């Protein structure tokens, strides 16, 4: 999809005024947070697992080339093929090539964030293939022609009524008068419609939560069972996976699985955790004849060893989204690309360019909740600050904020001037709030005061108080 991240502030404003969206977001937010909290309190070993998970990823990233080669070897040994691709265009071309050689017409697709990243559906549809998303949330947004708004709950922004209307318009047949109101009725409708997709598809595409170097397996973690049907019934199974998904062993995956399910949905484990290793074996009575893994780089090898290295530990659990005050207020679409929330604000500028993604690292209060809840201990606020620093260095920030920051830097390096100026500012602000202690609006700061109040400074500046109170030694 074409990113619209540059328009974040317009997107966000629209989202804040969208009553239906606000209703959907309110419903979702608390649920995720509460379920995760309960799951963590049930597992005293969580902190130890978190440490271990971080060690696993750090070790793997430090030996990434070795493990990828090992993984490739094992996939080939089990009869599968590995395709290395650098860009989204190359990834789409590789998938399309496999589909064409297989004479495929219909593709059943399981949920894949890498698939969103490379816009695989657009590419396959442009080539005349019939692509059907089979994860219920992905199916809903596919028929609504929208991108996902959450990395694990893609249709979290839709209300039941909106979903029922979508189904009504698309599936409606004159002789069919199924009631479509309750959640069971809606889920059942999708089950009936998508059954036929699984049974008639030539190719199944799934994502991968992990790749296992030891065995050459690809792992998916789902609740619906659609990924397994997509990987079992069609003739060809294609796995879309990015290079940082590899881990050494089945034991390592077991550690990360305990962290993933709890952080994502508050489950101890999802309904289905599946390890795929190669195509159907000689004696098997079902399963695909071909097994392909598309190994996607798309900027990741360039992150390795650099300022954003730690982001490569991300296991896409979504906890940082669920706990982010900005995400909770505006939803995922405002971020304008496939990855929203704090992890999206770090990844989007790296994947679509800092020019397009520029507003995202700035649309954060750096409150630090994301880092607190991240099962992989990724220092998200620090990475966001790094984007801001780079933006400033490359002179991408708008002139007014560059000018303001330059003035601040100039005076901050001159302590006397700084103290004098901040005292003056504080006094002026205090006087002009006329004793109410809050500002409803301030000239030059409408961006801040439009949605919140600015507390007026109380008493002296911090520096003045510090001077007065610091222990005299």
């Amino acid at each position, binding site marked *: 999809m074409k990113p619209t991240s540059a328009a974040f502030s317009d997107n966000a404003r629209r989202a804040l005024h969208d009553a239906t969206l606000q209703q959907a977001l309110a419903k979702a937010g608390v*649920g995720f947070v509460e379920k995760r909290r309960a799951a963590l309190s049930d597992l005293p*070993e969580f902190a130890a*697992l978190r440490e*271990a998970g971080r060690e696993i990823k750090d070790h793997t990233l430090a*030996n990434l*080339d070795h493990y990828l*080669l*090992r993984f*490739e070897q094992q996939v080939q040994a*089990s009869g599968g093929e590995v395709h*290395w691709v650098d860009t989204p265009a190359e990834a789409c071309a590789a998938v399309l090539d496999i589909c064409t050689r297989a004479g495929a017409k219909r593709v059943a697709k399981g949920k894949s964030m890498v698939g969103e990243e490379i816009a695989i559906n657009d590419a396959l549809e442009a080539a005349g293939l019939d692509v059907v998303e*089979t994860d*219920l949330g992905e199916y*809903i947004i596919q028929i609504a022609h929208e991108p996902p708004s959450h990395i694990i*709950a893609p249709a979290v922004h839709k209300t039941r009524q909106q*979903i029922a209307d979508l189904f009504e318009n698309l599936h409606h047949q004159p002789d069919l008068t199924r009631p479509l109101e309750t*959640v*069971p009725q*809606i*889920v059942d409708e999708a089950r009936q419609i998508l059954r036929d997709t699984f049974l008639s598809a030539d190719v199944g595409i799934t994502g991968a939560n992990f790749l296992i170097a*030891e*065995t050459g397996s690809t792992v998916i973690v789902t*609740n*619906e*069972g*659609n990924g397994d*049907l997509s*990987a*079992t019934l069609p003739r060809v199974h294609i796995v879309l996976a990015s290079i940082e998904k590899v881990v*050494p*062993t*089945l*034991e390592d995956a*077991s550690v990360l*699985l305990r962290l993933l399910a709890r952080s994502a*949905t508050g489950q*101890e*484990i*999802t*309904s*289905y*955790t*599946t*390890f*795929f*290793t190669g*195509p*159907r074996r000689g*004696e*098997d*009575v*079902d*399963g695909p004849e071909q097994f392909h893994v598309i*190994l996607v*780089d798309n900027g990741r*090898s*360039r992150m*390795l*060893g*650099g300022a954003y290295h730690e982001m490569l530990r991300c296991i896409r659990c979504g906890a940082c989204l669920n706990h982010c005050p900005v995400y909770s207020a505006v939803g995922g679409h405002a971020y304008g690309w496939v990855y929203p929330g704090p992890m999206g604000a770090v990844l989007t500028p790296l994947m679509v360019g800092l020019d397009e993604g520029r507003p995202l690292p700035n649309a954060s209060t750096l409150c630090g909740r994301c880092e607190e809840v991240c099962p992989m201990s990724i220092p998200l606020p620090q990475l966001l600050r790094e984007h801001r620093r780079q933006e400033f260095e490359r002179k991408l920030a708008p002139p007014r904020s560059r000018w303001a920051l330059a003035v601040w830097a100039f005076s901050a390096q001159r302590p006397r001037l700084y103290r004098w100026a901040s005292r003056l500012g504080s006094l002026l602000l205090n006087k002009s709030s006329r004793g109410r202690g809050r500002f409803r609006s301030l000239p030059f700061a409408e961006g801040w005061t439009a949605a919140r109040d600015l507390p007026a400074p109380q008493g002296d500046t911090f520096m003045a108080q510090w001077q007065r109170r610091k222990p005299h030694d």
Partner: protein
Amino acid sequence: MTDRRTVILARISQALGHAAAADAPAVLQRVNDHARGPQPQWAEAPRERFLAKLAKVAGTHAELASEAEIVGAVADYLAAQTLPQRLCVAPHPLLADVVWPQGWQVAHRRAQGDDRIGLAVAFCGIAETGSLMLLSGPDSPTSLNFLPDDFICLLPEDRIVPRMEDAWALLRAERGSLPRATNIITGPSRTADVEQTIQLGAHGPRRLHVLLKGGRHA
């Protein structure tokens, strides 16, 4: 396409400051050690833990003293759910000698789109999470685990291991390598994609019923 594999690997190796090798010593050691991470602890016996966790994810179970009780347990389940006596059964040795009642339609094959009820045998159970592990193969078609509305799974009691890591150890000891599909199944299929409301039976089975068989495993 120029050789992307070379380009990507070169970029990674350069960032890491070493040459890529599938048999690098650090890697070989890690892959062969199978070191376990922190292991969650609990007080109950594996069997009790398994059943408690199974119930928590909306799975049901029946207890069988031996293979001889399989037919009765399946019949009870079908009656309780008012289901037709039409089964798709995995061609598994533990189910081969079962004599199904006259009049039942029983097919021993992979599942098809209109199969309502599937019966298979788990490789093992995992107590920590109340999960079943099934391994694809001629005696356990994967389609059976996912297509039918009702999935009934036989699990010999002595095949319950404490944790996922124990299941891997068992798998390595008995099979050597992984089959095409290793399914860890925990309760029936579910979705929360409509207003975050949990609904069972999204695409996979609507119900999961475990036949927990006592006695020694053949």
